[in-house]
């Protein structure tokens, strides 16, 4: 069954159909939110709230967009609202989740440091470029889906992705 079939089944009263939608998307949605808010506990709560919103909001979902892009739109809006309210950033949280130089031998520390620098540079990207990069690389969404979620066109999303990647390469070169 595809997503549209499951949505129809749920609207006809089959609650198990919604459970299947949760199984399909909970991991992706939670990790997407985690990358925005930077805290696992917050990501778990927010992700659950997204599915609750979807559960109560499905009657108002008419299939003009796909269920997937609709769900991502809710998730991104919810996560961004949370960040605006809490006023803390992913970059501030990251050091806690990564090992420190004392925990790793020198030759293993260098790649960890590089990954951390890339994370920090991702955080500095303009919001639309950053979210486009994350949705493309980490969630594997099509440019048309990204455009639907963030607004704009597929070509615009492709352009944002290119600019983000180009900026990161230049930063990586400076670090190296």
């Amino acid at each position: 069954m595809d997503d549209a079939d499951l949505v129809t089944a749920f609207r006809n009263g089959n609650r198990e159909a919604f459970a299947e939608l949760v199984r399909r998307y909970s991991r992706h949605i939670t990790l997407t939110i985690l990358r925005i808010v930077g805290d696992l506990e917050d990501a778990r709560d927010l992700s659950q709230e997204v599915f609750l919103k979807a559960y109560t909001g499905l009657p108002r979902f008419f299939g003009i967009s796909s269920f997937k892009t609709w769900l991502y739109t809710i998730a991104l809006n919810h996560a961004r609202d949370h960040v605006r309210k809490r006023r803390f950033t992913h970059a501030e949280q990251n050091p806690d989740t990564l090992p420190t130089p004392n925990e790793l031998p020198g030759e293993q520390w260098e790649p960890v440091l590089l990954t951390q620098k890339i994370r920090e540079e991702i955080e500095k990207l303009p919001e639309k470029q950053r979210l486009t990069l994350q949705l493309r690389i980490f969630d594997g969404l099509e440019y048309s889906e990204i455009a639907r979620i963030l607004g704009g066109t597929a070509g615009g999303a492709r352009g944002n992705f290119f600019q983000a990647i180009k900026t990161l390469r230049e930063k990586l070169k400076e670090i190296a």
Partner: protein
Amino acid sequence: MKDLDCATAEEYIVRSFDKSITPKESWRLANHLRNCPHCTQIEKEYAELFNRLREMRFLEPETTFWTQFETSLNHRLKQESSKSFPRWSWGWVPAAAAIVLAVVCAVHLLPFSETKEPDRPLDQTTLSLVVDELSDVFNPCPRDFFSEVAAANDALSVQNAVSICLNGESYILWLEMENETYDSFL
């Protein structure tokens, strides 16, 4: 065929790692890279960057996190369903009806409708198209609802029918994308 410039080659390099390059672009890029050490170096840098980014995607919580997540969510969904499941299915219909009726009434009641040149009345063919369009927009609203709209065809003009369709679609899109209720929309 003209060789690529380096700026375009860089775009094609990104597309190749992004797996969104066409065969023709791939062929042109390969030709360019054979003769351009500058872009070959850039390609290596992008390879390093994409490797790092793809490694980062696998940093995720342990299995127990997902088990707890599912249990906790199921519990919250059960609570939610006990209070909301029975009332959701047609909850938006009164709002949709209110929008349509408001437009229809406005044609009769507002003063500007008397001073303006009367709009062309709706013929039966156009009327059926409008009803079909409304059915699409407000699907799965019962057909009876649209029959009622159709019955009021004295009040429906082409201009008003188009307004209803456009307003209806905006309304639905707005509800879908913002996940709002019809109350906040109104």
